[in-house]
């Protein structure tokens, strides 16, 4: 990176560190932070949408739809979430390949599951075997995003379902007295008012989502955990200009600090949003704000 980095062995420790931390391999670690942020940026809205859909289904008057929604929301109960991650990431991949197989190879006569193998025709492989590396990476990342979204969508559904029911009955009755239809009540009264009830749950969920991002490593993504292990491991002079001992502890200490800072900043921001959302609401916090202003 820097001009003076050509001969690391001759550098003093500050410059050595500077050069060490800017090697191309370290750039991978820094990009991986981008991957984590990208995952959060995509997963948060998508899982909110999943949760919203789940909550609407669960409220449905048609029994099978309601069962579907409630069943989806209920997957958060009783089972370790890591199991969901490991399950969905394979199950989704197989589901995609199965669907493609049905579309692209309709005259394939062999069974797909043969003993311990899952065999689809070459045209249904995802991604194609000859695809460049970035396609493989992107596909793996997208499957991971979808997995996160499904799991967190169930959690969000749980929160939103509760929030929709927490909107005061009187508000809905008033809306009905004005002659609003079911849909209008939902769109104009319930949805705008539910957020203040949903926010404590959703902020909790956001914290949980931040803390779940290292699980990307389990899904086979080259994320910050992967690179911290890789870069921190003992490097011998034979293979690198920057030999060092086992530094993995320090790399993980750095990740620990990163996550602490991230959750702390989120806490502060979410508190502000909560204060803003409480404004003018028929809740204790809203009432307190009104009193303070008056």
């Amino acid at each position, binding site marked *: 990176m820097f001009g003076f980095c050509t001969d690391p062995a001759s550098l003093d420790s500050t410059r050595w560190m500077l050069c060490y931390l800017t090697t191309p391999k370290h750039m991978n670690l820094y990009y991986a932070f981008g991957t984590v942020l990208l995952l959060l940026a995509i997963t948060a809205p998508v899982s909110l949408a999943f949760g919203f859909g789940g909550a609407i289904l669960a409220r449905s008057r048609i029994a099978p739809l309601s069962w579907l929604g409630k069943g989806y929301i209920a997957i958060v109960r009783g089972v370790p979430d890591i199991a969901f991650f490991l399950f969905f990431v394979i*199950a989704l991949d197989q589901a995609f390949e199965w669907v493609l197989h049905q579309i692209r190879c309709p005259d394939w006569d062999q069974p797909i599951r043969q003993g311990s193998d899952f065999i689809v025709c070459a045209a249904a492989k995802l991604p194609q075997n000859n695809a460049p590396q970035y396609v493989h990476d992107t596909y793996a990342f997208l499957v991971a995003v979808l997995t996160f979204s499904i799991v967190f969508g169930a959690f969000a559904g749980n929160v939103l379902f509760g929030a929709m029911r927490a909107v005061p009955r009187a508000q809905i009755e008033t809306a009905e007295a004005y002659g609003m239809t079911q849909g209008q009540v939902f769109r104009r009264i319930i949805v705008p008012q539910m957020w203040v009830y949903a926010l404590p749950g959703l902020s909790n969920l956001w914290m949980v989502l931040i803390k779940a991002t290292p699980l990307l490593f389990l899904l086979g993504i080259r994320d910050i955990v992967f690179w911290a292990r890789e870069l921190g491991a003992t490097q011998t002079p034979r293979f690198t200009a920057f030999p060092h001992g086992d530094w993995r502890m320090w790399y993980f200490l750095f990740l620990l600090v990163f*996550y*602490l800072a991230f959750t702390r900043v989120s806490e502060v921001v979410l508190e502000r949003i909560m204060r803003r959302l409480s404004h003018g609401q028929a809740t204790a916090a809203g009432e307190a704000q009104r009193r303070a202003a008056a």
Partner: protein
Amino acid sequence: MGNFGRQPNFGKFGGRHMTCAGALSADWLRSIGIGARQLPTSNITLCDQFVLIGSGLIWNVYFAVIALSAGFFLAMALALGKDAASPWLRKPCAWFIFIFRGSPLFIQFFFGYFLFINIRGAFPGLGVLTSAGVGATIVLFLNTSAYSGEIFHGALRSIPKGDLEAADAFGLSGWGRFRRIIWPTMLRLGWPAYTNEAIFLFHATTLVFFSGFPAVQQSGDALYYARYFADRTFNPFVPYPILAGYFILLTLVIIGIFGLINRRLNRHLPQEVRPRIRYRPQVIR
């Protein structure tokens, strides 16, 4: 993707057990290293999966029981410490709770493991820390202490003022006041949330063998074996539901045990005001 975990077929060694009873007697202690060295590799039957994943639960229960029972005491100390007037006591407790609640358990495991490796380098006698049985239990213990400490701290702050005034009126002070009034009330108020914490700690034990701590001779926990089977058979639709079933059962056991304690803690209250334990999932840490 699309081909991870695909393993060659070792036809010859498959189907080691012809019967379910055979699988059960051979493998039910496999997770703690007793039984056939080789895991089933091909012709994996449903029985193999049920027995081996069930065997792995020994680890999950072990981690949870040790971490929870030791963590309970540290949690009490942290809750009281965070409420202390002296900043010398309050600040360290608050920081401890913040650090363990504000960072992912997964990263804590990794950091702990590599820290223990460095300790082993300096003091070879402490090498046992790098094993899952000791090292991971310590991390889980500290983690659950922080979460439960926060729960009991909240409970401590919400003890009804009237109870404390009544204690003063009766002339109780110091240790007697704490033992007879504050502590039981704190426990009672915090118990439903603590039940959730216990459930989540139990679920979090599945992370251990994915976070550096080695599964020596493939002795792992339930999720370790479930993933082993999913990778072997390339069929996630069998091992994970088995795992889920086991965990739901054990979650119900936890709710049952903690419910009994809850009943005992609230036995002086009239029936209708006793708080019920409501399972509120909070997920991942």
